[in-house]
C-alpha cells in the first residue's frame, strides 16, 4: 500500500516537473518562464507599426495558433521589417504561450 502511495506521488511529481509543454526560449524555467528574446534585426530604420502573432500549448498535448512573422506582419499591415522579438511564457509546463513581435513600417 505504501509502495503504491509512493509510486503515485513519484509519477505525479515526475509529470509536474517534466516540463511537458516546452516552449521555444533561450532560458527555460522548470516552474515558471517569462522570457523576451530577439529573433532578427534588419538595416531598416524607424518603425511606426507593431504586429503580434501567437500560439498556445496546453499540457504539451494540445498546441494551436499561428506564431509566424507573416501573421504578425499581416495583423498590422507591416511591409518593411525593422526587427523581430519573441516572448515565451510557461507555467509548470501546463500552459505555455509563444508570441512574436514584429516592428516595422
Amino acid at each position: 500500500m505504501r509502495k503504491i502511495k509512493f509510486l503515485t506521488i513519484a509519477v505525479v511529481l515526475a509529470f509536474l516537473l517534466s516540463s511537458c509543454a516546452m516552449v521555444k526560449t533561450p532560458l527555460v524555467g522548470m516552474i515558471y518562464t517569462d522570457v523576451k528574446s530577439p529573433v532578427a534585426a534588419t538595416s531598416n530604420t524607424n518603425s511606426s507599426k507593431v504586429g503580434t502573432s501567437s500560439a498556445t500549448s496546453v499540457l504539451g498535448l494540445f498546441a494551436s495558433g499561428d506564431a509566424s512573422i507573416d501573421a504578425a506582419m499581416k495583423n498590422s499591415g507591416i511591409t518593411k521589417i525593422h526587427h523581430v522579438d519573441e516572448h515565451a511564457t510557461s507555467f509548470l509546463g501546463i500552459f505555455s504561450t509563444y508570441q512574436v513581435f514584429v516592428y516595422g513600417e
Partner: protein
Amino acid sequence: MVNNKKNGEMCVSTSLYCIVLTTLFFLIISINSFSQNISKHYTSLRQSKGVLYYILPQNGFKNKDTKNEFIYDITYLTENDSLILNFSYFDKLIREIDSIAIIGGDRKYISLTNKIFIDIKRSKWHYRYSSNFLFNDIKTLFTQINSPTIILYSKQGLIELKIKFKTWRKQSAITNKILTLIVYNK
C-alpha cells in the same frame, strides 16, 4: 527498524517537497493575478523619432445577441497626437465596416476605418481594420469607471459591442496605467 526509519525520512522529504512546490505554485499564481504587472501588457521601442509603444491585444467586447467578438490593440508613437487602434471583428455575415465609434460617458469618439485584411477563421469572417484616435481622447476614455460601448458602422447596419463591467474595470486599470506611464515619459 532501519528500513522503517529510512521510509519515514523519505515520506517526510516527499511531503516537504510537495509543500514547497504547492507554496511556489500559489505564490506565482498570486503574483500574477493580484499584482498589476503592466510590463507584460505592453512593449516600448526607443527610436530617433520618439518612443513607439504597443499595448497588446485585449478582448472582452462582444455583441449581446450574436456573441461576435471584438479584439483591439493600440500603437502609439510619442511624436504624434493620435494613436492607431487596430481591431479584429468576427462575424458570420459579410460586412463592409466604414467607421468606428466609442461611446464613453457622455462623449462619443468617431474614426474612419482602413481595411487591413478580411480572412476566414473557422465558420466566421475575420475583419481586420485600423482606426485613428486622439491620444488624449483615449486617455480620457480609459479613466472612466463605466464600461463604454463600441459601435461599428457598416453598409449592412450598425454593430453594437459591449463589455462586462468587471472585465472593463480590470482592462481600463491596466491600460490607464500604461497611458499614464507614456505621458510621464514624454
